[in-house]
């Protein structure tokens, strides 16, 4: 009971799901302690530096960032060789001990120690933060990360607030004794880290083997153990997306350096009291703001606005504040600039940046992070410092203005890179997903020439039944230009003893071997032309009319194969030939084979007289497929008739369903418009077939448009149907809901990129945990806000109670759906 109550409490925290509470809380706690400690170290760092060396010497401190990068790269090498847990614990212990050591060094050393301490504090920040986030990255997939990063970051922000407040309150009395406090906080993080890894080991032992097991963290593969700075550089250099991320980090590092100098330059002049205390309060205050932002907004903002807009939010705010400094360079403007830079970098930007890494394969990600976050980030600070010195050297005296303009320039480039990164991110997520299957009918259409295959099978079947039928099939292949070498080989493969040596044999036995010899002559075109011309002759029509009358009037005495021959031949006659109308009798023949041939020829003729019989045959399961294919041959001119049939409620439901399929086969704009209209009109019994027919059109090459308003209306109806079905049967069988969900995705495919939508659907349906996460990520980045809000409660793996609550709420207040 206690556990349940506790779980329910934690589940109220944003994004947490059952089973995730303990690890997430341990990460929260670890980050809390690390940042609380760092906040104290940092306040001492900034205040002591300004006190001893002043803001004019800040570029010297910034240039040490490169050294920090080198130290960090060295620890990265260790990271690649030593187990994650051991390294993180040892690092925490190292900084706790050395932090305490500074307590003894400060009173004895001169000004130079301030610079050493500055470097030390920066090394602590970069090494600990990187190790911590690599641990988080290893453990969570993109969806989990998206939900949980906000929560974990909140821990860091809370820690920073506490550290800042303690510094503010105690700085006057405790002075450097604060170093003991922050070292103690680092020591306290060690058991939390050990617990995280202990839980992970237990989880891995319990998890079934397979692709859905959690990502690897502890025992790295051999190639990862070898990773270091050089590997990291090569990895980033060889991958355009990683180069893009590197560019973003580099520019953000430059800008952060400029902002740091701009703000400290103003603070140094404006603040007259204890600087350590001021920085404590300032750090604490900006983290309170960050925390509120995080608690109230970050997860929601990231969820709601997607990565693209989030990536732009941060630089745009900084841009606005930099313009503020240009106009009004006072303490408030400096606090606003530094405050927004820091608070947003801890919250929104941190979340967005971590998300950007998720489509990168684990091995590359690890190597790239080592290079970008540890080395390049530091290098950018050093470059920032050199740029500052360079700008100051310019003749214009107003250093603050010069730096502000430089910052604006970099911000513009940064925004551009963020735009590109967002697009690349979506592309990579798409690449992560493999389309598992395509529509069966389309697949058959692409891979198999159905008409050809049927003719070849009929050809072989007719071989011993009737030489005339056989010849007609071969002519059919001629007409389609499909008498391929393979078919020729098949025809010539007839055993020698069956091949008549002369024309007499051919006529007597009526076998067909010599035909193949004729085909081998390069006279196909001439033959085709001759036959067409003969069939167009009036005398031919007259002769055949007599033959048909005799044969069809004595139908009972005629063999079915003869009627099949006639049915086949009539399909080759010119459309205007009155003889073609004899197909009407054959369409009603007793023999299914004759009817099948007649349906095919009726389709070829494209004559209106056959439409009633063809549509009637749609309702006969034996001929439905043939009839649909024949009607498809009519093309656009059959659309109206089929539309009337589909709309006629007096017609049997099965016939109307097959009519929807036939309309989908026709697949022109008129057919699509009518199918959508009918879908909107109801009844629901036809929804599945109509939606499928529309999807068939969408999956094909035809360039047709889909009325987005109608589609969105229908999508809304299907989604509501899903909620209602789920609520009506709270233990909803997946079988009952699956067709509705499939319809939802087919409708989405009409408006959005079908390939993406179906990739996502298929991976959600049968993919691994990782594939499902990427599928959701793809949808998240593809769909509009309203559609996401309505669809994601169905797709996300929420507890039953939460799902029921969300569905009820959505039925009451359904979002407006826009493409």
């Amino acid at each position, binding site marked *: 009971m206690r556990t349940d109550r506790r779980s329910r409490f934690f589940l109220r925290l944003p994004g947490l799901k059952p089973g995730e509470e303990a690890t997430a809380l341990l990460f929260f706690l670890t980050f809390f302690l690390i940042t609380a400690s760092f906040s104290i170290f940092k306040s001492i760092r900034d205040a002591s530096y300004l006190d001893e060396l002043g803001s004019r010497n800040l570029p010297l401190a910034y240039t040490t960032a490169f050294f920090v990068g080198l130290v960090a790269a060295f620890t990265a090498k260790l990271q690649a060789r030593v187990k994650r847990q051991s390294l993180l614990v040892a690092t925490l212990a190292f900084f706790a001990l050395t932090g305490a050591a500074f307590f003894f060094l400060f009173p004895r050393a001169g000004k130079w120690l301030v610079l050493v301490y500055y470097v030390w504090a920066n090394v602590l920040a970069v090494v600990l933060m990187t190790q911590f986030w690599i641990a988080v990255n290893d453990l969570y997939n993109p969806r989990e990360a998206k939900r949980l990063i906000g929560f974990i970051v909140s821990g860091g922000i809370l820690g920073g607030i506490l550290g800042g407040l303690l510094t503010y309150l105690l700085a006057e009395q405790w002075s450097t004794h604060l170093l003991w406090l922050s070292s103690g906080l680092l020591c306290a993080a060690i058991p939390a880290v050990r617990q995280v890894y202990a839980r992970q080991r237990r989880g891995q032992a319990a998890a079934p083997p397979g692709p859905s097991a959690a990502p690897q963290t502890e025992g790295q593969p051999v190639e990862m153990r070898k990773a270091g700075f050089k590997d990291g550089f090569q990895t980033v250099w060889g991958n355009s997306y990683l180069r893009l991320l590197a560019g973003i980090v580099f520019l953000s590092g430059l800008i952060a350096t400029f902002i740091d100098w701009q703000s400290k330059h103003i603070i140094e002049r404006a603040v007259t009291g204890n600087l350590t205390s001021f920085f404590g309060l300032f750090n604490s205050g900006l983290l309170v703001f960050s925390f509120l932002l995080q608690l109230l907004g970050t997860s929601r903002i990231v969820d709601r606005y997607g990565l693209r807009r989030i990536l732009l939010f941060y630089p745009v705010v900084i841009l606005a504040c930099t313009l503020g400094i240009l106009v009004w360079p006072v303490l408030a403007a400096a606090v606003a600039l530094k405050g927004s830079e820091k608070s947003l970098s801890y919250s929104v930007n941190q979340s967005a940046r971590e998300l950007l890494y998720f489509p990168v394969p684990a091995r590359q990600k690890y190597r790239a992070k080592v290079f970008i976050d540890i080395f390049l980030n530091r290098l950018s600070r050093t470059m920032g410092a050199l740029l500052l010195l360079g700008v100051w050297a310019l003749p214009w005296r107003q250093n603050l203005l010069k730096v502000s303009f430089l910052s604006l320039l970099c911000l513009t480039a940064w925004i551009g890179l963020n735009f590109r990164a967002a697009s690349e991110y979506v592309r990579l997520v798409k690449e992560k997903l493999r389309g598992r299957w395509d529509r069966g009918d389309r697949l058959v259409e692409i891979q198999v020439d159905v008409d050809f295959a049927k003719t070849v099978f009929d050809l072989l079947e007719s071989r011993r039944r009737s*030489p*005339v039928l056989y*010849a*007609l099939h*071969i*002519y059919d292949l001629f007409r389609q230009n499909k008498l391929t070498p393979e078919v020729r080989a098949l025809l010539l493969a007839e055993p020698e003893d069956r091949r008549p040596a*002369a*024309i*007499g044999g*051919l*006529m*007597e036995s009526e076998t067909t071997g*010599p*035909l193949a*010899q*004729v085909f081998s*002559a390069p*006279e196909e075109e001439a*033959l085709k*032309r*001759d*036959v067409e*011309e*003969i*069939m*167009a*002759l009036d*005398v*031919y029509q*007259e*002769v*055949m009319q*007599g*033959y048909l009358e005799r*044969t069809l009037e004595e139908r009972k005495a005629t063999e079915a194969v*003869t009627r099949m*021959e*006639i049915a086949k*031949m009539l399909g*080759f006659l010119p459309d205007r030939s009155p003889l073609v109308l004899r197909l009407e009798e054959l369409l009603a023949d007793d023999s299914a084979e004759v009817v099948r041939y007649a349906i095919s020829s009726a389709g070829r003729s494209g004559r209106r007289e056959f439409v009633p019989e063809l549509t009637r045959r749609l309702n006969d399961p034996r001929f439905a497929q043939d009839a649909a294919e024949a009607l498809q041959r009519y093309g656009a001119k059959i659309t109206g008739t089929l539309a009337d049939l589909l709309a006629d409620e007096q017609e049997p439901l099965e016939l109307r369903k097959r009519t929807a399929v036939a309309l989908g086969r026709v697949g022109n704009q008129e057919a699509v418009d009518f199918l959508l209209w009918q879908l909107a009109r109801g009844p629901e019994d036809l929804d599945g077939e109509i939606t499928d027919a529309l999807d068939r059109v969408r999956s094909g090459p035809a360039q047709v448009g889909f009325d987005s308003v109608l589609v969105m209306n229908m999508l809304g109806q299907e989604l509501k149907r899903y909620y209602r079905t789920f609520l009506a049967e709270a233990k909803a069988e997946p079988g009952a809901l699956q067709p509705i969900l499939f319809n939802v995705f087919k409708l989405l495919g009409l408006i959005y990129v079908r390939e993406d939508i179906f990739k996502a659907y298929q991976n959600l349906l049968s993919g691994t945990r990782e594939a499902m996460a990427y599928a959701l990520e793809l949808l998240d980045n593809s769909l509009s806000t309203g559609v996401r809000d309505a669809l994601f409660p169905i797709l996300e793996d929420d507890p039953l109670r939460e799902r029921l609550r969300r569905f009820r709420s959505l039925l009451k207040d359904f979002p407006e759906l826009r493409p």
Partner: protein
Amino acid sequence: MDIKKRDKNDIVIFDIEGEIRRSDISEVTLHQLVKDQLESGKKHILLNFEKVEFIDSFGVGEILASYISTHNLGGKLKIARISKKLYLIFQITMLTKVFEIFDEEEMALRSFGRE
């Protein structure tokens, strides 16, 4: 195209030689020759294609027109010794169902005798 006429009993045999094509129409067509025979009371016609090198749709039209004329007068028109290619065309157009086609002239003549 060169057409020679022979009589055997009451059967008129036309030995056709060369090519029967639209571009090679002589003053007297095959159909005209058959009609002449029909008008003179001969109702059993045999077309011998042994020496026919080529026949186009016009040629087939001539044969068909001859068939109709013969048939309308209650006569019989049969064909002997056609090429494989023409036989294939006849099969595709289902004219094998209409015409009686023989491998040898003798067999064709005998078939007239049996009727």
